[in-house]
């Protein structure tokens, strides 16, 4: 099982690139020109997200370095232990819905401290990839069209996030042990 999944994992990126390029070639798209044209937007986007990143990094830095995050994480110690969640990952569970860039920074830190191939590193990586930032996305998407009553959106998003966390822990423990 693990071997098959691993092969799928390794093959997927090259395969995706190959499919996009071959399909484009068949349809007569000017591949190089089009790629460069699209890629040039990458720089604009990077500059555009910079102020958001700075704002988020600042708030999270203060929240984390002051010891507030640690205190808040302790609330989740017992429910975390029930599902086999390593306590080092708990801050990430709290941070993920708040900030995508902040949680990516935290994954970076966890991976550097405990190693990318440790159980903590693997669970953190899996968790990072399996959900998006809730508050940030809701703010942008609803803000853009002027919707103020979000109804059940937040509740359902949090339920989904929690399900993702539990799934990440169980799947990682099953596959990597």
């Amino acid at each position, binding site marked *: 099982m693990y071997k098959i999944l*691993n092969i799928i*994992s390794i093959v997927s990126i090259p395969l*995706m*690139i190959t499919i*996009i390029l071959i399909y*484009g070639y*068949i349809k007569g*798209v000017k591949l190089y020109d089009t*790629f*460069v044209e*699209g*890629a*040039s*937007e990458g*720089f604009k*986007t*990077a*500059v555009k*997200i*910079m102020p958001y990143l*700075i704002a988020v*990094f600042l*708030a999270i830095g*203060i929240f984390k*370095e*002051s*010891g*507030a995050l640690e*205190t808040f994480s302790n609330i989740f110690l017992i429910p975390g232990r029930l599902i086999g969640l390593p306590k080092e990952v708990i801050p990430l569970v709290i941070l993920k819905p*708040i900030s995508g860039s902040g949680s*990516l*920074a935290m994954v*970076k830190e966890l*991976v550097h401290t405990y190693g*990318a*191939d440790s159980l903590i*590193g*693997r669970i953190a*990586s899996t968790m990072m*990839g*399996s*959900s*998006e930032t809730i508050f940030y*996305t*809701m703010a*942008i998407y*609803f803000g*853009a069209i*002027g919707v*103020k*009553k979000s*109804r*059940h*959106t937040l509740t*359902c998003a949090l339920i*989904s*996030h929690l399900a*993702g966390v539990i799934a990440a822990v169980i*799947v990682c423990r099953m596959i*990597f042990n």
Partner: protein
Amino acid sequence: MINIIWFCMIIIGMIFAVINGKLDMINQVVLENTGEAVTFAIGLTGIMATWLGLMRIAEKSGLIKSVGKAISPLMRLIFPEIPKNHPANGAIVMNIVANMFGAGNSATALGLKAMDELQKLNKEKDRATNAMSMFLVLNMSSVQLIPLTVLKVRSDAGSLNPTEIIATTLIATGISTTIGIISCKLMERK
């Protein structure tokens, strides 16, 4: 919402810093974390540009549309309120496909277009429709195929096999998305 969260995180942090005697850390955070944010955004540029380039090819070749057509029956099931030939369908599918390909920021652009189309179908303009909530929950539970940024972080950290978490991520995403859809369907009647 984000304003309140941002404010609370900083103020609560300040209070804790005083209690824990870590006020000197705040100065360091102001200086270092902000710089880190800039470095981080710049470091992300390469990966983002690459996928935006590939996405542009996929868009021009019609690959995105073909993928959209392939999951059209599923769209009817999840978004029964959207009329069959409404442009919201295309925008939603393109956003989901962009998400699948991990082009987070172009996905956001497409997502905003989808929200715009959904708002045209909305009778109460300041209240989210069922389709909007469903779309956002689907979006936030991440239907990403390849978590590129995580892979980059892992390979930077010297992982022997950075891609080994793709499979576990897919399973976790599948479960969180399914639960998200079900909870949305259950709660939208209220």
